[in-house]
């Protein structure tokens, strides 16, 4: 089998003046992913290639990078689906480069935290010492389930044309999580969360290019979440009122 031409963008901001593209010949095998190819190059050709990975099964979101011009997970992209001849690996756009393919996700996580990505409840005592469970109906669950699959890989943010020009924009990941928690039947913080995003650098900066949904490896569909969020920002009303949030359900005594 012919070798794969693996081209990697090499750049150490501490030492190098500008990035350079370096080509490696990698023996192909059936089912080979881009991560496999990169690990071969690092293990057998050049130990200094910088890349980040962990689970190798599209669960951790560590190996996001730009592959043949599009943000993808290296572990989730087979060489064959790219034509099998040449693979070009570059760091994700819109994130600062630490070294080679490793980018800094610090501001990405800060923006995620800024939308209060957790259930906000007024019954603090129940949160600290639970006496039961907050129930959701299957219908309530289906409103948020797909948005819970986000692995925070950053591919959506890397693809977003608004993030490319506006540093203060929260980005598709954070906005989708704002909708995910606000639409959760157990949450009571929707009004505050939505009000915080109603500004010129907030949700209205999204112009529905849809690239976030196009590149998402988990089917989260951030573009859908953001458009649904806009409707609530427009009306000023969260998906449900505070007093409509799930009540605590206690299991009946078994009688034993």
């Amino acid at each position, binding site marked *: 089998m012919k070798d794969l031409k693996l081209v990697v963008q090499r750049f150490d901001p501490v030492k190098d003046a500008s990035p350079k593209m370096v080509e490696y010949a990698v023996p192909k095998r059936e089912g080979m992913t881009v991560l496999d190819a990169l690990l071969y190059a690092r293990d057998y050709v050049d130990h200094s290639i910088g890349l980040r990975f962990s689970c190798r099964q599209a669960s951790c979101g560590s190996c996001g990078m730009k592959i043949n011009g599009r943000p993808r997970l290296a572990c989730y992209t087979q060489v064959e689906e790219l034509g099998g001849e040449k693979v070009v690996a570059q760091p994700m756009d819109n994130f600062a480069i630490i070294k080679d393919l490793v980018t800094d996700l610090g501001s990405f996580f800060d923006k995620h935290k800024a939308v209060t990505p957790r259930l906000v409840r007024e019954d603090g005592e129940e949160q600290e010492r639970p006496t039961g469970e907050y129930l959701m109906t299957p219908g309530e669950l289906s409103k948020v389930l797909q948005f819970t699959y986000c692995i925070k890989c950053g591919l959506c943010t890397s693809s977003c044309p608004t993030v490319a020009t506006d540093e203060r924009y929260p980005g598709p990941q954070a906005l989708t999580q704002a909708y995910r928690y606000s639409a959760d039947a157990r949450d009571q913080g929707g009004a505050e969360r939505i009000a915080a995003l109603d500004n010129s650098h907030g949700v209205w900066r999204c112009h529905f*290019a849809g*690239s976030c949904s196009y590149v998402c490896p988990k089917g989260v569909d951030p573009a859908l979440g953001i*458009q649904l969020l806009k409707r609530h920002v427009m009306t000023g009303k969260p998906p449900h009122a505070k007093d409509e949030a799930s009540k605590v359900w206690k299991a009946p005594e078994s009688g034993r």
Partner: protein
Amino acid sequence: MSSEGGGKARNRRGLSGWLNPYHYNFERWAYVFQRVTGIAILAYVIGHLGDTSFFVGGPIGTGPSQSSWTFISGIVENSFGHLILVLVVLVVIFHGTNGLRLIASEMGLILGRPASIEYPYKPRSLRLGQRALIWAAIILAVVGAAWAAMILFGGLA
């Protein structure tokens, strides 16, 4: 590549990030055309305000007269001017129709509802419903521009 401090390099795409839709989806192309046509329409409106101002006696004009009308009409009454007007019709119809699609999307009307997903993932928001409206915008724009061209170049009135 500029430094971001802390031994890191900036890698934000900037203008090329929104101007270049290559490698991305159909909606991304529509996004670029929507923004570019928006700028083009703004430029046209400013120019149009300028020539109207010239004719009606605004700050840069000479006031209503045969000579000022002849001057203004001389700018557009030629093949190049007609071509510009045909392009104006094209971009205005596309921008307006595609804008209606975006408004409907922002109200959550044409995107479908969140639901359970199965591999291979196909985002609901990028499915046929709203995508058909992009095609409608393109077709209407082309038909409108062809109609305008027939009037301006073919003498159809």
